C-alpha cells in the first residue's frame, strides 16, 4: 500500500472518528511528505482532543522544527516530557536542538536520558558520544604561529568562544552542526578541503573524497547560470538515499557544504549551512 493510500485511509478514519489516534501517523506522513501546513492542522486538532498525549506533542514539535519554529518546538517537547518523562522522541529532539544552540551540557543530559530509554538506537549513541567528546576538556592546542602573531589575547578568546580553532581547521564547524550524522566542509576552488570534516561510521574522515566529488556540481551550476535569466546561484540542495546535502558559494570560488542524514529536517540543514558559511567567510578573511 502506498503512502498516498495510507494518508487517504487515515484521513477517512479521522473523518469517521475525530477522536481516533490515527492523527499521529497521518500527521507524521504529511510531515515527511513536506506538507507541514496540513500536518500542523492535523496535529493541533489531535492535541485538542488528546492534550496529555506525549506522542501528539512530539509530532507537533517536529512539525515546528520543519517550519523553523524552534522555540515552539521546544515548548511542545517540554510538554511531552511533562506528560511522559521518559519519552525518547522528545528527549532526543530537545538534545538535538540544544546541541545546535551550543547548549552542550543540556544536550548531554537530554541525549543521555533518551539513550537510556532507547538503548537500541545506534544513531543516538553516536550523537551522545560526540556531545561528550565536545564537553570533555580539550588538550592544550599547539602554539599557532598565525594566531600568536596576529591576534591579541581578546581576539584569541573570541576565536575560541566561537569555535574558530585555527590550529585545527577540521574542527572549525564542530560546534555548528547537529549531533547525528551531520558534516560540514569548506572547499577551495579545486574541491580540496580547507576546513571541516566528513566523518562516517568507523570514524574515517571522507571529506577529501566527498568534497572532490561534490565540488563539480557548483561548476555545473555556474555554467548553467550564465545562460539562464535567474541571476547568481545562492544554494544547491539535493536529496539522496543517504543524505541531504546543502551547498553555497564561499569566498574565492570556494564552496561550503553541510550534509545530514535524510531524517534530519531540511530546514535545520539549511540553517546549519548559513552558520557554516558565515564562519567560513570570517575564517578566510583572517587567513588573507
Amino acid at each position, binding site marked *: 500500500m502506498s503512502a498516498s493510500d495510507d494518508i487517504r485511509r487515515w484521513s477517512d478514519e479521522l473523518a469517521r472518528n475525530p477522536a481516533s489516534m490515527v492523527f499521529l501517523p497521518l500527521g507524521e506522513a504529511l510531515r515527511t*511528505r*513536506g*506538507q*507541514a*501546513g496540513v500536518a500542523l492542522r492535523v496535529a493541533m486538532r489531535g492535541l485538542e482532543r488528546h492534550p496529555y498525549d506525549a506522542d501528539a506533542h512530539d509530532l507537533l514539535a517536529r512539525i515546528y522544527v520543519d517550519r523553523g519554529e524552534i522555540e515552539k518546538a521546544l515548548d511542545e517537547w517540554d510538554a511531552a516530557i511533562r506528560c511522559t518523562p521518559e519519552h525518547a522522541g522528545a528527549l532526543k529532539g530537545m538534545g538535538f536542538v540544544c546541541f545546535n544552540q551550543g547548549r552542550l551540557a543540556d544536550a548531554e543530559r537530554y541525549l543521555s536520558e533518551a539513550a537510556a530509554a532507547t538503548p537500541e538506537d545506534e544513531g543516538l549513541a553516536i550523537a551522545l558520544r560526540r556531545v561528550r567528546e565536545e564537553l570533555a576538556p580539550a588538550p592544550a592546542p599547539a602554539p599557532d604561529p598565525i594566531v600568536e602573531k596576529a591576534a591579541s589575547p581578546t581576539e584569541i578568546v573570541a576565536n575560541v568562544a566561537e569555535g574558530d580553532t585555527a590550529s585545527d581547521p577540521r574542527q572549525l564547524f564542530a560546534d555548528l552542526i547537529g549531533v547525528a550524522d551531520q558534516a560540514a566542509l569548506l572547499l577551495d576552488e579545486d574541491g580540496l578541503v580547507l576546513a571541516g570534516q566528513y566523518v562516517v561510521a568507523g570514524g574515517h574522515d*571522507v571529506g577529501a*573524497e*566527498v568534497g572532490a*566529488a*561534490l565540488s*563539480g*556540481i557548483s*561548476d*555545473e*551550476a555556474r*555554467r*548553467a*547560470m550564465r*545562460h*539562464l*535569466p*535567474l*541571476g*547568481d*546561484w*545562492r*544554494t*544547491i*540542495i*539535493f*536529496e*539522496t*538515499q*543517504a*543524505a541531504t*546535502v546543502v551547498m553555497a558559494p564561499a569566498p574565492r570560488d570556494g564552496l561550503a557544504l553541510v*550534509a545530514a542524514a535524510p531524517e534530519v529536517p531540511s530546514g535545520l540543514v539549511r540553517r546549519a549551512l548559513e552558520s557554516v558559511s558565515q564562519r567560513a567567510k570570517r575564517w578566510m578573511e583572517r587567513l588573507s
Partner: protein
Amino acid sequence: MSASSPFIPSLEHLTRQRGVLGSLIVSETDGIVIDAVVQATVKSPVVAALAASLYRRARQSAQAAGLGGVKYLELVADGGRLCMAGRDDLVVVLVTDTRVGVGLLRVELLRTAAELPE
C-alpha cells in the same frame, strides 16, 4: 510537444502553481525536451540542456561520494529556482520565480516524477 502526450496534464498542473514559469520533462542523457508547458519567456531547449547537465552531474557526484541516487535537486538563485526530480533517464524540471511555495512544489514534483514510466 504532442497534444496527446500523457505528461501534459501533469505539466499543466505544475505550471499552474504560483510562481512556476514552466515545467518540462527532459532526457537526462541528451538534454532534449520530451514535453514542456512553459511561459513564453522560458527557452525550453536551453533550460532542458542545462538542467539535464546539472542533474546528471549531481547524480554522478553523489554516487562518487557514496551518497546514493539523487531524488531531488534544487538550485536557488537570486531570481528564482530550478527544481528537479528524476526517474531513470527522465527528469521533471520546474523553473520558478521567487514567489514560489517550495514545500508544496517539492511534493508535487516528487509525485510527478514517481509517476513517470520506468
